[in-house]
């Protein structure tokens, strides 16, 4: 009997090895589908550029983003300063490159913060329903009726200005979007045949969440993060622009636009270049988000 079992096992190993050779991994298939979407690929390259710049900013420029130069104020773009200088004589390109770091840092932190809260509350709310669901969803309704910017300004007013408070303010409102999306996804998964099948073989609640619901919610969550990232970037820039977020002299796109505002007619390059940098990054993430949405769902065969 055991010999026969061993033979079965050997055969299985051989079978699987043969198939594995012919077959590409699931991740690779996702990448293939993603790659077919031109815009997604463009977005991917754009985000790679942004990441590269953030990582190697000091190597890409000879200037220091905080070193002022009173003799070279508001200089137009030239060979020395490709994007000109600002009101304190700092190189705009350098500040732009360093600004990438702040932008990504804030973006990632906001998304992490609101994503963690939102996704976990969404799961609880969707899976357990009842009172928990009612409480969470009413909270979502209440928070969503708050204007984010004014809430952030109020928080800054109470706790003082700074990056951390921007993140907290954004997170307090931002998680609601995740919670709603994840909850509705879970509600539909919960009703699915495969979850009922899981119950019929005796899976525990924890196992159903971990093995059946979470993996099927993951693509939604990943796409959400990619779509929320640019929203977070724009919001944090807006707050910096309004003076409640990142404070000068930190090299930040929002505050650069704000500072350049006074010199818009004489030195338009300051605000414009920062604005374009925001646009570039936001577009990149948006393209990726759309591409991922299509690539991660093998069941949707688009024509």
């Amino acid at each position, binding site marked *: 009997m055991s010999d026969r079992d061993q033979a079965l096992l050997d055969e299985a190993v051989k079978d699987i090895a043969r198939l594995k050779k012919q077959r590409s991994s699931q991740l690779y298939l996702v990448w293939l*589908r993603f790659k*077919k979407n031109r815009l997604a690929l463009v977005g991917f390259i754009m985000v790679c550029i942004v990441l590269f710049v953030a990582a190697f900013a000091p190597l890409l420029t000879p200037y220091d983003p905080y070193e002022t130069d009173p003799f070279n104020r508001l200089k137009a773009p030239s060979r020395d300063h490709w994007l000109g200088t600002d009101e304190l004589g700092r190189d705009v390109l350098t500040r732009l490159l360093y600004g990438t770091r702040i932008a990504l840092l804030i973006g990632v932190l906001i998304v992490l913060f609101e994503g963690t809260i939102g996704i976990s509350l969404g799961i609880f709310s969707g899976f357990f329903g009842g009172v928990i669901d009612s409480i969470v969803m009413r909270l979502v309704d209440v928070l969503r009726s708050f204007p984010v910017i004014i809430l952030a300004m109020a928080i800054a007013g109470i706790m003082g200005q700074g990056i951390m408070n921007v993140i907290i303010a954004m997170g307090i409102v931002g998680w609601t979007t995740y919670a709603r999306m994840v909850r509705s996804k879970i509600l539909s998964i919960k009703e699915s045949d495969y979850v009922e099948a899981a119950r019929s073989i005796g899976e525990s609640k924890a196992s159903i969440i971990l093995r059946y619901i979470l993996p099927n919610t993951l693509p939604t969550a990943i796409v959400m993060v990619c779509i929320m990232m640019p929203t977070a970037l724009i919001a944090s820039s807006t707050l910096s622009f309004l003076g409640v977020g990142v404070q000068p002299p930190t090299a930040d796109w929002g505050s650069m636009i704000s500072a350049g505002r006074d010199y818009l007619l004489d030195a338009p390059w300051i605000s414009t270049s920062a604005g374009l940098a925001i646009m570039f990054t936001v577009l990149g993430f948006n393209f990726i988000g759309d591409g991922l949405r299509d690539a991660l769902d093998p069941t949707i*065969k*688009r*024509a």
Partner: protein
Amino acid sequence: MAKILEIRDLKLSFETEEGTVEALDGVYLDVEEGHFHGLIGETGCGKSITGLTVIGLLDNNARIERGEVLFRGKDLLKFTERQFQREIRGKEVAMVFQDPASSLDPVFSIKDQMLEAVRLNKKEEKQSNERIVKELLNKVKLPDVESLLEKYPHQLSGGMKQRVMIAMMLGRNPSMLIADEPTTALDVSIQAQFLRVLMDLKNTTNLTVLYITHNLAVLTEICDEVSVMYAGRIVETASIGDVFNNPSHPYTRKLVNSILRADSTLDSLEEIPGSVPRLINPPPGCRFHPRCEEAVDECSRVIPPVKEIGTNHLVACLRR
């Protein structure tokens, strides 16, 4: 009898992300005027696409590579969207789909929708239009017509909606009806009621019906001829009696013997090995050859031509 519809060597493909789907590959189909013609095949064999081609409702990514679709001698493939809308759809050819709910407008009452359909045909007095509507609804044996007229689609059951669709279609008096799995979503007792309505139309009018389904048993109740479709080609066309009692193509034989009937036993049922091929890179030669017990070498190389093996009995198989 004249042929109302002749499909000649129709080849049609779809461009998709994964490649070109060769959905129809050399389809020949003749439908006699006044006959009920069944088109049977499994999921994805191209039977619905054949119907949609006739009524000009193909998706944008469909590409017709060659062939003709002659309706009363006119090639529909040369028609523009405008011509389809003015001369064919509803007026000459009507279509009924599996899901009647999607074909009825949820915000208008049955009366409004029926009147609209009748008005499209001829402009007459309101009173007489309403009379026509009631006659039509009686024709499809809908009970309690008066109260039905005031109802909205969501208040009707699937079977009733399907019959309203037929009544609406009759209002425009087309010469041909394409029915695409009209009873698949219905219960057997409701299906029987629906088939009865079609049978009455068959006996009282000169309507031609192309009945598309995967359910051979349904076809035997109402059809004169049946065409069997497999992976984008028609493999056999014959009278309903011949398909059942004297099937020729190996696929038809297997299909007929795999249907559950009153005297079936597990042993009497035949199975077809393998599964329906995908139509991206379909098998060369005869598309059924990988699953066919009678296949020889040649079958994997040569596309079998259509042969007439008896009166009105056409088969596309090299072994016949």
